[in-house]
């Protein structure tokens, strides 16, 4: 391929600009054999409305931050990254958006997907359209078993139940005297699955533990006074919840108003999703709090995470939640997959070649090393711990921080039955 004078100067300019901002000098696209000159199009599907909108925004911000850095460093194999956004909403509309990205915008890869119901529709669609799809989040057991048993193009998120498994492990470790438990979880598959899983794992450590109350308010409910009254009445030793959105904060405030956690322990498996709204004034110390796959204040944070947290705070005025990392990981792994496949193929790889390259790949994500299992499942660490007020913020953080790898707390294959695996695996040895 010949390089024109203008293209050459553009390449030199990009390399010089890269050097100036501290990135390694880059080689222009035209200098790479077999690499097209146009941008790499990445379809991004964040949720933009309803209770999950902040989660969608966090995933989008993680992707945007990644794209900005990658473009400053010269793109993927010299090709600039262009993000094309379409909204995730209900399964029917999201599938139409997905098809638009694949057929109309002709993107190279699609990232996103938070709801399991949406994932159940997108998984088969990715295979039908032969479109690489790297999911961010949201795979309950039904999604694990049904979405894509033997996928070629679809890569799915971590099993949702791992947070509940982690919460149960920490409950067994830190709250040894717990005999009775109550659960308040949202009335949909995620809430039901988490509650069942939490109990199953906890019973492996404390066989006599008994559930005295289970509540399933609708997702999006904002008044828990009657639920809290019922919990007070049931007098459990511990309250477990998998709330992950603004309802976590509301529950915490309303519980604080009646001093609920003065009489019982609590395990918030996923409350870290809204961590900086859990103010010290109403969130007590000593609760279990899960941050999913990224803890912004981790003592062992990489320079990458520290930079991200700093820039995120400066730009948005808040501290990043975990979904940023799901977003970042999917696109960073795509880049690594393309580069790996390029080395083998000697030209810009096909979607099939990238998919193959992604199997088993490990990259540096915001939260540390993350990978894709050979069967297209995300692998990462989960961060949970005990709430503390000893920090420089006006909200709680966790100390100690327990790092729970999915290699230990997620079932090893999609075909394994979750409860069978729990019974065979827990209590963990060592």
């Amino acid at each position, binding site marked *: 391929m010949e390089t024109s004078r203008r293209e050459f100067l553009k390449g030199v300019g990009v390399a010089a600009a890269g050097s100036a901002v501290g990135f390694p000098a880059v080689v222009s696209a035209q200098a790479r054999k077999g690499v097209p000159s146009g941008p790499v199009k990445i379809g991004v599907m964040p949720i*933009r*409305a309803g209770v999950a909108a902040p989660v969608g925004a966090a995933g989008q911000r993680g992707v945007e931050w990644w794209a900005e850095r990658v473009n400053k460093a010269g793109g993927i194999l010299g090709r600039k990254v262009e993000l094309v*956004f*379409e*909204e995730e909403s*209900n*399964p*029917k509309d999201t*599938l*139409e*958006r997905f*098809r*638009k990205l694949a*057929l*109309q915008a002709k993107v190279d890869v699609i990232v996103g997907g938070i*709801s*399991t*119901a949406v994932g*159940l*529709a997108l998984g*088969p*669609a990715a295979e*039908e*359209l032969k479109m690489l799809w790297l999911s961010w989040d949201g795979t*309950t057991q*039904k*999604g694990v078993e*049904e979405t894509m048993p033997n996928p070629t193009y679809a890569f799915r998120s971590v099993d949702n139940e791992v947070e509940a498994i982690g919460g149960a492990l920490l409950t067994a470790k830190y709250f040894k005297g717990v005999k009775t438990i109550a659960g308040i979880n949202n*009335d*949909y*598959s995620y809430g*039901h699955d988490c509650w069942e899983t939490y109990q199953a794992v906890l019973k492996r450590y404390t066989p006599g533990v008994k559930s005295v109350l289970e509540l399933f308010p609708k997702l999006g409910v904002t008044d828990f006074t009657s639920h809290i009254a019922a919990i007070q009445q049931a007098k459990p030793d511990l309250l477990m919840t998998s709330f992950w959105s603004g309802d976590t904060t509301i529950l915490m405030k309303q519980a604080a108003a009646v001093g609920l956690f003065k009489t019982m322990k609590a395990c918030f498996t996923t409350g870290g999703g809204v961590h900086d709204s859990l103010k010290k004034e109403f969130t007590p110390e000593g609760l279990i709090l899960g941050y999913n796959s990224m803890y912004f204040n981790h003592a062992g944070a990489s320079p990458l995470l520290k930079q991200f947290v700093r820039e995120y705070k400066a730009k948005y005025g808040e501290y990043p939640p975990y979904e940023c990392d799901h977003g970042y990981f999917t696109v960073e792994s795509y880049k690594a997959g393309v580069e790996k496949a390029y080395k083998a193929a000697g030209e810009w790889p096909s979607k099939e070649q990238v998919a193959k390259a992604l199997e088993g790949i490990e990259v540096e994500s915001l939260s540390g090393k993350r990978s894709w299992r050979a069967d297209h499942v995300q692998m990462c660490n989960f961060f949970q711990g005990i709430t503390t007020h000893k920090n420089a913020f006006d909200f709680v953080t966790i100390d100690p921080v327990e790092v729970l790898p999915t290699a230990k707390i997620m079932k090893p294959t999609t075909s394994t039955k979750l409860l069978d695996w729990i019974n065979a695996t827990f209590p963990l040895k060592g």
Partner: protein
Amino acid sequence: MLGVAAAAVLALPLAAPVYHVLLMLPFMAYAVILLGLNLLFGYTGLVSFGHALFMGIGAYTGAVLTTHFGVRSLELILLTAAALGALVAAPVGALCVRYVKIYFSMLTLAFGMLFYTFLLKFYRLTGGDEGIRVLRPSLLGFDLEALAKIDYLAGPYYYYSLGVLALAALVMWRIVHSAFGLCLRSIRDNPAKAEALGISIARYRWYAFVISAVYAAAGGALLGPPTGNVDPTLAYWTHSGNIVFMTLLGGFASFFGPVLGAFVFIFLQDTVMSVVPYWRLVFGALLAFLVIFAPGGLMGLFAGRRPGEVSRV
């Protein structure tokens, strides 16, 4: 005009990009639903905010039959959906048509939300929020499994849906232009006079309700296969709101108004969603504009009807 539209729709899979062909699938399903809804809305004067109930019944019929009973024939699915729609509509309609205006609307909304709650709460039976998969149905006895899904949807399924829409439109045309249709309009315009003429208002409204439910269920059954999964949002009240919006957009005073509304709504939403993150705001403003300045919808604008004339229709 109708001939040109029909020719364009027939030729579309041959000429248009495949994505636009696929967008026509929900359009045709909604067009069937809206033909039925408008029998109630435009011709009988009853605004239902609960028709997502029947769309949900149709969609879930396809899912349950293909996934749990191994029934793949779309003809059988459509017939079963229509029958179940009528079966549920019979008692629901009998209760609802005793009321008019906002009371009718609220009662239909309540029944719709009851079904939505059933779908959400009976997790083991309905799949809860995750719903149930819809396996690819066979068309006219051909299983078509060998075709790639996109080719199946953009080819045979497209023309099948078009056939169902044409049949539904033909039947509805006959209904609204029959003596029965005339009775419905007289009930809408002057119930007291209609009753004095010997028309049983409640019974005719009930007939219209059941027929519209049959259409909604059949259209709902057509919505499932392109997505491959059905979920409770199909039965949520906002879905009922969407089809009322489509009817207003196209114009409820015209036979083909709601069909045009479905077309414009789907293609407008497709464009606006890609351009503006706050597309719901745009649609909200559009709805307000329609109600205030163009209650006759797009067909009213074409026909040059003044708002006052339409609101009396």
